[in-house]
């Protein structure tokens, strides 16, 4: 016969059990820390993991900030050491740039993607990652952490040699023949509008302020127009943004130029580089960084 608890006994046991679970998770956090990288389900999750790592680890030499266009340039594509990509899918380059500015130590070189500056910086992300004492989770998340441990165990990151082999295989393949014209046309229609002048001028002003702050502290800041499909580059919004930023920063030595053969590049969804193209751009940037580091 199951016991029938009185209300007080039932609620006390319930509270005790909840407290025990919380204490166990707090102890687990103290014991294991925040080392386990939780699986990213959405782009925002991915951004949190990237930014957590940036503020937790030693300051890199080179940082890329940008939108989803630059997000495709995975760090493992680069041969350059001590490089971090803080581009945020669905986010603004200004978010990453502001977080970099707010850190006590800054990288030597910061590359800013300027294609999509219309989005303002994400104040929540900037606030969360703008101090050296960014808030840590007090409690271990048992389900997420278990899945992360399982995923890390089942799909351990490839070794450098394995990675190199896979990337070389990708480079050896011909460019994709995927027909993207439906996606390309849809994307073009969405951005074939005039960029609101106030938005553009605000973005350029903010960019100038952040770049000035970084340069005052001795960093070098370079700008990058990520290569896009021709109809996208010719859309009114992109053209307007391009002209405004180049007008504000006319010094050609500030601009990185991607001199790749455009026929080699593909944008599967109409806007973002596919894996092979992103690898080609990354390798091209590697050569530029190498030249800058060893003039």
């Amino acid at each position, binding site marked *: *016969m*199951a*016991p029938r*608890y009185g*209300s007080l*006994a*039932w*609620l*006390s*046991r*319930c*509270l*005790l*059990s*909840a*407290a*025990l*679970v*919380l204490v166990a*998770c707090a102890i687990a956090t103290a014991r294991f820390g925040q080392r386990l990288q939780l*699986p990213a*389900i*959405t782009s*925002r*999750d991915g951004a949190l993991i990237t930014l957590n790592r940036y503020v937790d680890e030693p300051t890199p030499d080179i940082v890329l900030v940008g939108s989803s266009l630059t997000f495709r340039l995975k760090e493992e594509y680069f041969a350059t050491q001590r490089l971090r990509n803080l581009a945020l899918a669905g986010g603004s380059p200004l978010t990453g740039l502001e977080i970099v500015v707010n850190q006590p130590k800054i990288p030597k070189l910061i590359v800013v993607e300027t294609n999509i500056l219309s989005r303002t910086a994400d104040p929540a992300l900037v606030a969360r990652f703008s101090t050296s004492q960014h808030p840590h989770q007090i*409690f*271990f*998340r*048992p*389900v*997420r952490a278990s*899945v992360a441990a*399982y*995923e890390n165990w089942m799909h351990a990151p490839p070794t450098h040699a394995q990675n190199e082999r896979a990337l070389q295989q990708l480079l050896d393949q011909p460019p*994709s023949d*995927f027909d993207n014209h439906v*996606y390309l046309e*849809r994307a073009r229609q969405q951005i074939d509008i005039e960029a609101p002048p106030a938005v553009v001028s605000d973005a350029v002003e903010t960019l100038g302020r952040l770049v000035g702050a970084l340069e005052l502290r001795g960093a070098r800041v370079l700008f990058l127009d990520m290569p896009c499909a021709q109809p996208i580059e010719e859309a009114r919004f992109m053209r307007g943004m391009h002209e405004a930023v180049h007008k504000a920063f006319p010094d050609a030595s500030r601009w990185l130029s991607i001199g790749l053969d455009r026929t080699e590049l593909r944008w*599967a*969804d109409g806007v973002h580089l*596919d*894996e092979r193209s992103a690898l080609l751009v990354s390798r091209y940037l590697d050569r530029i960084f190498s030249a800058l580091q060893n003039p």
Partner: protein
Amino acid sequence: MSFTSWQFALFATIVFGVYYLPPFKPFQVQLLVAASIFFYGYGQPELLPLLAVAVCGTYLFLVLALRDRRWLPAGIVFNLALLAFFKYKFLLFDPNAPALVGVPIVDFLLRLPLPVGISFFVFHNISLLVDMTREKKAPPGLVDVFLYIIFFPQLVAGPITRAGMFIPQIEPKRFADITFIEAAKWILAGFFFKLYVANNLNEMTSYMDFPLYETLRTQDRWLLVILYSYQIYADFFGYSGIAIGLALLFGYRLPINFDLPYSSASFSEFWTRWHISLSAWLRTYLYIPLGGNRRGKFRTYVNLIIVMGLGGLWHGAGLGYLAWGLMHGVLLAVERPFLETIQSVKWAALRPLRIAVVFTCVTMLWIFFRLPNFDHALGYLAGMFTPSTNPNPPKLFYDLALLYSLPVIIQHLRVSSPVERRLAVWEPYLYGALGALAYLEAGPATAFIYFQF
């Protein structure tokens, strides 16, 4: 003010703390009405006059209808007109347009947002008018009517309580009568299903948005539809559980809204298990007045389709909602002639098979809820049957999907009574752990899905 916000926790604690204090005992109803007005006005103060007009107008029609029954239809039309105006005006007007009709007061009304919970309090109003007129008793006091319609646990998304069930409960409440264990179980289960299951699954099902879903692999499109099916259940079950638990703390018993709907072996059974209070309302106030099943087979089928179609439109002004309701109506009509024969077949494997068929159909139809744009919903459906071509599809973690869905699956497995009795000793510990897990593993905050209706 969402049930999952700290503001609501503070609000509910203060109201509960004051409610049973001896000086406030004579004013318990007034206190709950004042608290409910504050709760509603906290998010949309500009819509409080509308709430007052709806309740006072309904009360006026009730008093008139009790003298002369011919006022009853006028009262129902008044409420349906309110619902139709606020819910369907956006079909005809763009609220952001610089000029609407040019009459300032009308323009002001046209620009008002959709009042949260309007679908629910209008149904309460109609229930009040019909039940009270039918019983021909003296009308309840205006404050009691206010409490019935705007009682804060059920104001925004139900359960839809019939006046005949709620109003007799309005009497002085004693602290000693609170069923604390039952209330705690409902509230903890509600928060667990909302925070752990629904909010975490929402992170995954966000890939069902247009045009994101086009990047998914075909099998992931199927997976996400199933996950959305679990999410919408967990979200609404969670809300209803919290509402029932909170109401118990204040001495009121609200109707149960869900009874393991995904274990239904027929569509008619599904509608006795899913959003039970809405199904009961539609049956009582729409299906039966339309003639129900008393006017021959063909008329019964037509009635079913009409009622479900209107039930779909009640959710929102869109072709997708209408299609969702009509298709449920068609499924009910199609199964009706065969139901008796199927139920008479004694084959053990048949029931699981029937459950699978009902779950699959119900789940596929949720696409019209997730994507109210009809073209997008059709695009998603088509994508479930065509191979995906995207070379870089997003990666979904199947293990996480399973872990977040598990509570819904386990709940529907129906633990047998002997096992349940043996587990009873662990019940308080289990609920405590669920509460802790809801806090630890809460997904990013999102509004309850049914708040939009």
